[in-house]
């Protein structure tokens, strides 16, 4: 749940990048880390194995600046994607204000995406959160790969995004779509704090 400090006029929101292993969640954060000026971000904390696979989470705090008179900060987290790390995924998901589901666009990873999305729904439900109430955007990563290896955005939308959430094509390694994805989820998360907002 977003933390609002009315005295200091500060807002802090938690956004979790979720998805199957090696879909590019950490790469998204690494790109953001590389682009955002040092004065506007913290250190990127990565609890990873020697092979650079996320073991617990990656964490990157960024300072968005002032929005509607509130100094606004986002805490960006990733979860470990491999199926056997579900206990840690649940822990990181606690208190999330928004989710970016990073899908791997490769056709051979189709089942992994479905399994991860189902896992997200189960873990949210276990925490008493209905996925329909959670601000969520989809990012279809690795769209830069040869066309015969990847599924088109429309096909991925059909398979994964049956609630019609906003979705973005991306090549996180080179930054394409990373900004748009963050912007998309930011709007959804902050909309919940805005005048005239209605439940999703």
């Amino acid at each position, binding site marked *: *749940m977003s*933390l*609002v*400090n*009315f*005295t*200091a006029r500060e*807002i*802090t929101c*938690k956004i979790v990048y979720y998805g199957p292993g090696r879909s590019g969640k950490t790469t998204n954060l690494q790109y953001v880390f590389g*682009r*955002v*000026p040092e004065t*506007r*971000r*913290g*250190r990127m*904390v990565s*609890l990873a194995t020697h092979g650079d696979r996320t073991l*617990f*989470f990656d*964490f990157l*705090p*960024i*300072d*968005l*600046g*002032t*929005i*509607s008179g*509130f100094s*606004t*900060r986002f*805490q960006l*987290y990733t979860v470990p994607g491999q199926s056997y790390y579900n*206990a*840690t995924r649940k*822990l*990181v998901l*606690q*208190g*999330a204000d928004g989710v970016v589901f990073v899908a791997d666009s490769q056709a051979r990873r189709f089942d992994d995406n479905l399994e991860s999305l189902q896992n997200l729904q189960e873990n949210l439900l276990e925490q008493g959160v209905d996925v329909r109430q959670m601000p969520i955007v989809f990012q279809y990563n690795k769209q830069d790969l040869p066309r015969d290896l990847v599924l088109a955005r429309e096909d991925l939308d059909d398979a994964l995004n049956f609630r019609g959430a906003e979705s973005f094509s991306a090549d996180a390694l080179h930054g394409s779509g990373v*900004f748009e994805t*963050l*912007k998309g989820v*930011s*709007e959804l998360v*902050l909309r919940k*704090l*805005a*005048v*005239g*907002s209605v439940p999703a």
Partner: protein
Amino acid sequence: MRVLESWVSGPLSRFLTESSARMVLLMTSSGQVVAQHGFTRSVDVMSAAALGAGIMASTGEMARLMGSPHFGALVHQGSEQGMLLCGFDTPRGRWIGLVAFGPETSVGLVQLFFQQFVDEITAAAPPAEVHGPVLAENFEHELNASLRALFGR
């Protein structure tokens, strides 16, 4: 010292004075910062809170796997400073305290005074206030400008 809500200030000041702790961080169980003393950069505070909440969450899960109730506190003793990490229930939900201390005090004193602090803020916590909308309806323009500036676009 920075606190999210003013009723935390008094008990936290007393704890700092009595325990001689160097740094204190109070956070929710999901890693949101509630109060802090001793950190210089707000973004570093958030990193410390994320790690502290992660440690407590994984330790709690370990306890569950071993069929134990929550572990109350964790202590790490380094050569220059030590760290106490402690979870506790408040009327505002479960919070976590992270305390860094040096050789000018001891883990026993820090734990003793921290428990007093927990008792004080548990008693002092007012009911959660209900606030109306926080942001203006047309906040997107400012958000987009902020994000474009951040990404150099």
